[in-house]
């Protein structure tokens, strides 16, 4: 689109007039006169609210997708930590199965299980679970289990435990959580699924017993959940039929 020079000139003049007006209006002395007026005050408050909400709305809409992608990446990264990449060739985020988990006290009434498949055969599963009774709130964890019910890995995703004491359940701060790898309900007796203080297999921390105790118990319950649904989970036929429903 092209404008003839006369139109552009006129537009420029108009803009100059507006700028002059705005400059005069924004003079502190002019604003000082306006400020006591009720209409001005209402207008200013409304203006600020409008600007703030438009700004927040636009930012929220334009970053929603990015944030969702980041969260998916996070989830994928935690999945990769507990299920070795060599074990699957499918997209874990798309291959899921929901199983009821209310009776296992692991935070949710329904647990989404991510299913790892290698050439069509289920090699491992992975799900998030929660110890709802940590020292200061829920401890959210993720666990990978191979098709023979051995733990491939456990990680803590988030928690509110005491910094410096209870936070040794994080892999970044101590290798405590790695001691679960290779364990299963078969190679460790139920009584041994506890901290050493309670006669179990796993260390407690100096100054923090409740955090590791509750974590161990939640991991044990997670394994029980898997055990109860093992057939359904590792048999691909069962969830293919489920997908079609």
């Amino acid at each position, binding site marked *: 689109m092209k404008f003839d020079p006369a139109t552009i000139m006129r537009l420029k003049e108009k803009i100059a007039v507006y700028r002059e007006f705005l400059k005069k209006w924004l003079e502190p002395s002019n604003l000082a006169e306006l400020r006591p007026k009720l209409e001005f005050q209402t207008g200013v408050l409304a203006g600020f609210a409008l600007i*703030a909400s438009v*700004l927040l709305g636009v930012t929220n809409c334009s970053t929603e997708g990015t944030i969702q992608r980041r969260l998916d990446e996070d989830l994928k990264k935690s999945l990769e930590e507990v299920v070795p990449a060599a074990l699957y060739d499918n997209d874990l985020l798309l291959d899921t199965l929901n199983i009821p988990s209310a009776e296992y006290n692991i935070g949710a009434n329904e647990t989404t299980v991510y299913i790892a498949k290698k050439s069509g055969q289920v090699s491992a599963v992975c799900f998030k679970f929660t110890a709802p009774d940590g020292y200061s709130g829920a401890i959210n964890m993720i666990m990978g289990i191979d098709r023979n019910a051995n733990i491939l890995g456990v990680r803590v995703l988030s928690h509110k435990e005491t910094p*410096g*004491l209870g936070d040794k359940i994080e892999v970044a701060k101590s290798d405590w959580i790695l001691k679960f790898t290779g364990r299963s309900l078969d190679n460790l007796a139920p009584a041994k699924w506890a901290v050493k203080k309670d006669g179990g297999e796993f260390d407690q921390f100096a100054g923090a017993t409740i955090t590791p105790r509750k974590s161990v118990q939640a991991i044990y319950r997670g394994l029980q959940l898997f055990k109860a649904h093992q057939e359904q989970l590792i048999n691909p036929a069962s969830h293919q039929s489920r997908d079609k429903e």
Partner: protein
Amino acid sequence: MFISETYRKIAADGIWNNNIVFGQNLALCPLLAVTGTATNGLGMGLATLVVIIASNGLISAARHLIPGEIRIPIFVLLIAALVTLVDILMNAWAHELYKVLGLFIALIVTNCALLGRAEAFASKQSVKHALWDGLMMGLGFTLVLVALGAAREISASGTLFANASVLLGESFRFLEVTVIPGYKGFLLMALPPGGFIMLAFLIVGKRLIDQKLATRKVPVTVLTPVIAEEES
């Protein structure tokens, strides 16, 4: 020379004399909540620093527009919008940092010091002075957070700047020190009451230093013009 004198006065106020915590006794909620370790203190301090500079600058720039009668709702609106904006943008574009600092960002809304600076300083001063004040107040606050975090961390678990590399990146791993090897740990200091106790010690320490300074230079006080903070 007057300009630099004013800037020096603002800096001294922000970092020491009128420090957010020591001088104004503000911002105790985020202060006690996050200073379990020096690293957390540093994270909270840096996040607050950014937001307080931005809020001071914005409010100072709009100060002629804001009528006195409705200034508080506008300040609250601006600060809350700013914090939310930083929160969303960091979550999207600096996600790794957000995972560490995310918790602190939302807590900044509860920081009355921001409102305090907006009311007492930014709404009456030029943008340049307000930005400088935000920087200095933020630095002073960061300093207290790190000092309190360090004192609590050393007495609670015998370490200093544990996990600094998670917050600042691998190259800052050298900051992580074990001050007292084989320390058994003192749980109280990691819990909120320990924060209050240690803060009391720090405030006493600051008062003692101030007293010493005051007795040393009694006769030679040149009255410098008090900046407008108390004037208008």
